[in-house]
Structures are given as C-alpha cells and as structure tokens.
C-alpha cells in the first residue's frame, strides 16, 4: 500500500486527488510510548490528526515532542502503542516506506548535491522519469520562490534559503505527512516570522497534513490548527490556540502558553461554584469552572487570569462591588508604557505580584507608580486549576 502511494505521488498526483476517504484521519497515535534505558521519554500519547490539518507539538525540551515525531518518522521504534498513517499500521514499516516528508532544524540538505539535486532526490528514489523530475523540481523551486538558485550548493545559500530548499524537498513528492522538527529554530526572529507565514500558506495550499514540533509558543499559536502541549512525555492538553489560552486545564498549560497571573490558595466548594481562599482574601469561582476542574473541597488550587483580563479601578469605584466581579486591593509598583499597551506591575496585600496589560487609547485612566488601586476581574474570566505544588 505504501509503495503504491509513493509511486502515485511520483507520477504527478496532487495531494488533493488521493483515493482515500477524506474523513479518515491522516495520523492516529494510540498509547504511544518510548522508554530509553533510564528515562520514559514518551509515556502514552494519543492523538488523531485530520487530513490537511496543521498540528503542533509544543512543549519544553525533554517533554517528549521530538521523540514522538521521530517515532512517527520511523527513526525510533516505539516501546508501546501504535502509529497509523492513512489507516495503515506503521509499526513494521521502515522510514523509507512511510512516505513521510521530514524537515530538520539544521536543514539536513545533502552538501554534495545542488539545491535542485536535493529536491530531485525523493523523486529519483520513486523512479520518476527524467522529464517528470525536471518539471516537478522547477515547480517546487517556484513554490518556495527560489527559481534560478537550483544549481547552487547548500553552502552557497543563506539559512533561510536552505530551509526553503529543505521544505521544497520534503513536499515535492507529496508525502502523506509533513513532519517538521523546529525547522525555524536556527533563524533570526524576523526571518522566522516571515517563514512561519510562508510555511503555513504553502502547507495549506498543498493541503498537506503537518506535524510541527516547536518550543516557541508564539510560533505554535500563529501556525497551528491545533496544538498539543507536551509535558513529561504526555499530552497535557490538546486544542486550538484559543482553547489553550482561555481554558487551560492545568497550571502547566496556563504558565506555558502566554502570560498568566496565577493566584494560589485553597478551593472551598459551595452550592454554586465556590471560592478560592488565600489568607483573608477570597475570590469567587464560577460554577462552570468548578465543574470542569472537579476539585475536592479544601484542595490546593489556583485561579489563572490573563493580564489583559484584569482591570485597574479606583479604590472607591462602584465596579469593585459589582456582582460577578472579583476584586482585591493593590498598589501599583511599576507603570510601563510599551507603545500599543501599558503594562502595570502591581502588588497584592500579601506581597504577591500581578501583571496587568491594557490597550493604550481606550480612554482608560492612566495609573502611576505608588497609586493605591482596586484590581478587578470578571469571575468568568478566571480559570480554576489544581495546584500540584500546593
């Protein structure tokens, strides 16, 4: 089956005219695990990726995302679990028969071959005809906007150009999956941002299914349809960027994606939701939050509020006592002007810090360092999570 697919690809089939049922997942991981001699690198990963979807594996180094990718590519054999690509079990399929395009952080262009020969390589392996190879290499070079550089050797190309060639080489044979291992990690910020959009656009244009590994949360948010947050060999949370940002399931996710204010305390349940208590401070927790977090009464918990969801008001402002609002007295330690936003660093009565970001030009009052203020947020804007360190 996989050999057949390889040859249809080489014969000029576009990604769109595949004979597959369109609703079959492109990739299914079930209970995937990998243990090395002394560590459990991947510890039971389940993931289903739709055809044409862009899924990012995001996590700190050592969280198992790269090992997962290498198992999908076939470079590392899993210790347990299964990998299915287009409905076919890949357990005993060697990497060269998986029909998977891989892009490495260091590009891994063949230094003894020109850019065009690099791109031609997968087509030659699939025994495409000479004219076919010539046509498709030209197409691929045009796709990455490097027409005319085909005769250069990798060392004669800039980092960004090398990564474009690596990309062209990985997509030219229309693989069933496109795997990328921190492909933009070695580039400077500006180029990285430009290439993020380019990689995203071209992948969509080709209808490619992409599994993308990065530790850069911004990159993940920009590019992905869905993001899988990895922590200690497991997927901590899987979802769209908005889901992860607005409804993190754990302190780890809240902390990893975006900036967070984390208020720790004890959870106290009551009829309609509950409270987070911390010393003599108490904040309301919405019933929906309580349901989701499923915490027992009295357990260590935290509420997470994004800096832009916090508001600063005067101490006597009526908003402080409004229903559905949590409030706490605070003092402004730093008021920072950052162009489009103002950033305030506040201190709560118990010494904990909080960060507030407000748009400039919204007609809001401007606060100064040393001001005594009320810090408020809507009950529904805070997320309740368990505090494993509590």
């Amino acid at each position, binding site marked *: 089956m996989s050999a057949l697919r*390889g040859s249809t690809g080489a014969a000029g089939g576009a990604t769109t005219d595949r004979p597959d049922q369109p609703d079959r997942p492109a990739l299914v991981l079930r209970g995937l695990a990998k243990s090395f001699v002394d560590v459990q690198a991947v510890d039971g990963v389940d993931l289903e990726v739709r055809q044409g979807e862009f899924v990012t594996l995001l996590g700190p180094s050592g969280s198992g995302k790269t090992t997962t990718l290498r198992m999908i*590519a*076939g*470079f590392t054999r899993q210790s347990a679990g299964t990998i299915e690509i287009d409905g076919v079990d890949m357990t005993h399929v*060697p*990497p*060269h*028969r*998986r*029909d*998977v*395009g*891989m892009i*490495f952080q*260091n590009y*891994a262009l*063949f*230094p*003894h071959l020109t850019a065009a020969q690099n791109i031609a*390589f*997968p087509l030659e*392996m*699939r025994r495409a005809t000479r004219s076919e190879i010539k046509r498709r290499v030209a197409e691929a070079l045009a796709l990455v906007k490097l027409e005319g550089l085909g005769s250069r*050797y*990798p*060392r004669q190309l800039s980092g960004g150009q090398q990564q474009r060639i690596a990309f062209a*080489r*990985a997509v030219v*044979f229309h693989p069933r999956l496109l*795997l990328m291992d921190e492909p933009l990690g070695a580039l400077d910020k500006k180029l990285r941002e430009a290439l993020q959009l380019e990689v995203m656009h071209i992948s969509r244009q080709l209808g490619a299914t992409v599994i993308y590994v990065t530790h850069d949360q911004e990159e993940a948010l920009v590019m992905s349809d869905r993001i899988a947050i990895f922590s200690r060999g497991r997927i901590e949370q899987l979802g769209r960027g908005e889901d992860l940002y607005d409804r993190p399931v754990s302190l780890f996710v809240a902390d990893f994606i975006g900036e967070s204010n984390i208020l720790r305390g004890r959870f106290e349940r009551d009829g309609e939701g509950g409270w987070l208590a911390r010393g003599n401070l108490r904040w309301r927790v919405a019933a929906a939050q309580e349901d989701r977090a499923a915490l027992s009464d009295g357990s260590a918990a935290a509420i997470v509020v994004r800096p832009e969801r916090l508001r600063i008001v005067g101490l006597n402002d009526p908003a402080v006592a409004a229903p559905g609002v949590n409030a706490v007295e605070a003092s402004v330690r730093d008021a920072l002007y950052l162009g489009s936003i103002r950033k305030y660093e506040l201190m709560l009565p118990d010494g904990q810090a909080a960060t507030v970001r407000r748009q400039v030009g919204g007609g809001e009052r401007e606060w100064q360092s040393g001001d005594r203020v009320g810090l408020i947020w809507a009950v529904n804007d805070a997320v309740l999570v368990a505090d494993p360190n509590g």
Partner: protein
Amino acid sequence: MTDSWRQPHRLLLVALGALTVFFLLAPTLVVVPMSFTASNSLTFPPEGFSTRWYEKMVTDPQWSTGFVNSAKVAFLTAVLATALGTLAALGTVRGRFPGRNGLQLLILSPLIVPVIIIAIGMFSVFVRWKLAGSIAGLVLAHTALAMPFVVVNVATSLRTVDRNLELAAQSLGAGPVRTFRRITLPLILPGVMAGGLFAFITSWDEVVVSIFLTSARFRTLPVEMWEQVRQVVDPTVAAVATTLLAVTTTILLLALVVRRQAPAR
C-alpha cells in the same frame, strides 16, 4: 617583557625539532645519494655518479618480478582492506550493539600487537591452510595489518557526517543501501580513499610478515631486498630502496591531499 624570555625558548624548541627530524630522516635519505654511486659497493659518501644500478634494477628479472608482485599484493590489499574496513567503520560508528567497544579494539589490535607475533601466528595457521607462499595468503595477511588504517580514516570521516543527513535520505524514500551509496559514501569518500592509500603503503613496504609468508618463487620487493642485503651488498638495493621510498612518499602525500578534501559542508 614576555618576548625576552620567550625568544630563546622558541629557538631552543625549533632547534630540538630540527634535530629530531634530522635523526629520523637522515638514515632514510642517505640511501638516495648511495643509489647513484659509480662504485660497486654500498658506500657513503658515494663515489662518482651513475644510474647503472637503476638500469640493473629494471633489467634484472628478480627485481622486476618483485616489483610487480609487491604492486599486485599492495593493490589487492588496498581494495580488500578498504572494502572491509569501510564496512567495519560503519558498523562500529553507526551501530548500536553489545560488545561494540570490544570489537573496535579487536579491529585495531594489529596496530598494537608486535608484528613478529602476528607473523608467527599467521605462518603457523597459513601453512596448515596451504596459504603460505601464495599471493592470496599474503593479501589476506596484509589486509589484516592494513585494515586498522582504513577503519581509523573512515571512522573519522563518518563522525563528521551529520546523522540527520542519513535520516533525511531515508524519509525521502532511500533504503539503507541507497542511503549509503548516494549520501554517506560520497561524503566519506576522502576518508575511504585516504584509508585505501594507507592500506596500499602498509602492504607495499611490509617486510616481517612477508618474510614468513613468501617463498623463493613468490617474493615481494622488500623481501627481495632483505634477501639480497644478506647475500651480496650491491648498490642496486639502494636504487630499489630509493624507488620504494619515492612510491611511498608520493602515495602518502596523495593521501594527505585527498584527506584534506573535506566533504562540502
């Protein structure tokens, strides 16, 4: 300040280096003028100038067959040692298996074990196997001696080849054999060729094992020299030595040049 004491210090170092080089090279280079002597005996300094010993070397069938035999054995050894040594380097550098370090040591052992011990061991075994005195036997023996040089050279090259290149080739549809032929081999070729040249030299001037494994009907050049020096001390030996030296030096320089052709990175 520092220069005042460093200057004589450096001078001493240079002098010491020059002296070392002189002691190492002089005995070797002394045969070159000796080979052009006009007299009938090996003398230094040489008397007069003549190329007649070179003429004798070329015309005397004993010398010329020795020359051809040596070239044959060295060439076959180079081919065999390069092929086996490259595979051994691949296995020990890329492979992950128990006993890898032990195997590595075993492959390199001919560099450590005294040659005379190897020679005696091989002789006793090869006699039983009827390989003593044959070209095949000598090629096999020299291959064992030469393989470490190939393994060391190829392994060094291989360690500079990014493992991701091989993985990339595989993900692009190349099986292990095609990955080796199209990607790995071209990138380690300088190391392979340097290893092959070192293997050639190893066989080309090997004398101890050869003495044991050659016969009167089949002699290599160094063995022929050994025999001749023991019987008649005739300046032809110096001419042959100079020729050997020239060939070895040329190949050694070639190996250095080849090895410097680092794979394009």
